[in-house]
């Protein structure tokens, strides 16, 4: 790690808008001057003095160890259904959210594990972008592609604000 801020994008880039997190992280990597191949799903692990970026398919328990090393963490994913905002921007706190029949873990859950095991509680933000189409495609729908650009700008402004506040 070379920054005190970590951005974690997650989702499946083979399922169209579910992979919006990958596209946003790639945009951010571009802004930082790091080249990521134009291949949704290509590995993104960027360590930069401004911000660290990591892209994963889904959240897993040992991610708690990673995030415990940072002052602030931002999760980036797609959203559907009930969330009214096109781009949802919410502060989140540690809370175990049980997923009864699946292997799914939420950002709040992994924060909860970090807090309990490592006694660390980074500031955490969940940015989610509305997904419109979830077919077997690697390109975003036009609506979500536009939102991904907007979300990138907002996250970039957040990164710069944090740097100026130091």
């Amino acid at each position, binding site marked *: 790690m070379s920054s005190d801020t970590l951005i974690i994008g*997650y*989702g*499946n880039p*083979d*399922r169209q*808008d*579910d992979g919006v997190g990958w596209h946003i992280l790639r945009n951010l990597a571009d802004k930082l001057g790091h080249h990521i191949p134009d291949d949704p*799903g290509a*590995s993104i*692990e960027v360590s930069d003095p401004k911000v660290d970026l990591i892209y*994963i*398919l*889904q959240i*897993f*328990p*040992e991610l*708690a*160890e990673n995030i415990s090393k940072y002052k602030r963490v931002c999760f980036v*994913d*797609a*959203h*559907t*259904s*009930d*969330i009214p905002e096109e781009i*949802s921007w919410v502060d989140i706190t540690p809370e*175990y*959210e*049980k*997923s*009864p*029949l*699946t*292997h*799914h873990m*939420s950002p709040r859950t992994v924060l*909860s*594990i970090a807090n*309990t*095991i490592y006694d660390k509680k980074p500031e955490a933000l*969940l940015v*989610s972008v509305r*997904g419109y189409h*979830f077919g*077997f495609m690697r390109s975003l729908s036009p609506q979500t592609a536009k939102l991904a650009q907007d979300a990138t700008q907002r996250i970039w402004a957040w990164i710069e604000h944090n740097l100026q506040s130091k």
Partner: protein
Amino acid sequence: MAPQKITIEPVTRIEGHAKVTIHMNDDDQVDHAYFHVNEFRGFEKFCEGRMFYEMPQITPRICGICPVSHHLAAAKAGDIILGVTPPRPATLLRELMHMGQIIQSHGMHFFELAGPDLILGFDAEPAIRNVVGLIGADPELTVRAVQLRKFGQDIIFQVGGRRIHPNFAVPGGVNHALTAEKRDHMRQGIDQAIETTQIGLQLFKDWADANIADIEKFAVFHTGYFGLVTPENGLELYDGNIRLIDREGHELEHFSAQNYLDVISEHVEDWSYLKFPYYKKMGWPQGVYRVGPLGRLNTAEQIDTPLAQKEFEIYHQINDGKPIQHTLYYHYARLIETLFAIERAQILLDDPEILSNDILNKRGHFQGEGVGVIEAPRGTLLHHYWVKPNGQLERVNLIVSTGHNNWAMSEAVDSVAKTYVKGPEVQEGMLNRVEAAIRAYDPCLSCSTHAIGQMPIKLDVINSSGEVIKTLQRD
């Protein structure tokens, strides 16, 4: 009072992948219960027309939890289609990667998903019945549990070179060799992984001793069992022939995966998108069988690594050497397999040929058809491809692990619901047990897409007029 229908529906993926419905009768008792899989993925159709050698890259997209299993099964099908035998070092590396997958998947299942139910109790508050709740019970164990999954995941990364969707196994072998540095790095984690798994085993056995009454009435039913074995009928997770036994442990079939269509068939029910495989000669539903940890340990007669064998001998005595029918013993079998996978990883890492550069065999004779088989964490996985002379896929048949257990999961839900769910006031603990019956099989229904915005688990009580008269919702 009119008959009620209770629905447990975790819509945790955009497709809405599965739900449980419990139908109550006039006496507030469970009449019957179903486990439905209500998604249709169409992956087999989607793959038609692609080149067969692309399948190790395409099929891992089916699942974010066990992509390695699909990756390797697809490469193995490709071996058969090309008519090549991978060089031994390539087979060692593929198996090592597979052991990493077994360790991470089984480790996460026991310690993070199922363990809290067992350790903290089915009736514990949901707020504490989770891995975080385990801290209070055993803080050191919780850290170890996270490390165990990380160890398995790290093996996949070290061998495959990528954290997601490894580009490693190809028809005929693998595309890069292992360095001594990476091998030595992996070796460092073996001892702790074994210790953690042994702690988990003791934990389970202590729990079983204290809860034997529950184990004896929790989804205990007869089926056949199905899994890969070594030539000596030992536990096998990467290769070998398939052994099918009956409820008494008698061998029904011992066959090459290439011939699976001669042995099993698939039944269709109108209330589930997931088919129900069964043993052809016995017919439906008499020919149903189970796969996964319980199926494999019932099918195997020995384990070829010392620590796992020692534990297997204890396991084998539970039912006097006969197949164990108890659903909750899936957890015990899963931990024994974890131990085996760690020991196998050590054996593979100690093999001098693991560092060889002889990793790809390109000299074969095109066969046009091939079946790849592997024991995925949750059971036998079959990839069957029919290929045109130009290499394009003409037809694809995938029988996934969870499919083999489809009947058993539904039966387990029905059995547990009838045993524990009583109306008219349905309690949290009752539903926890229904969930636990499914969770024991560690099903994987659709792990590939997971946008935020999912519904919480929901239970509707519906009268015969279709009115929702009560809703329980868990956030």
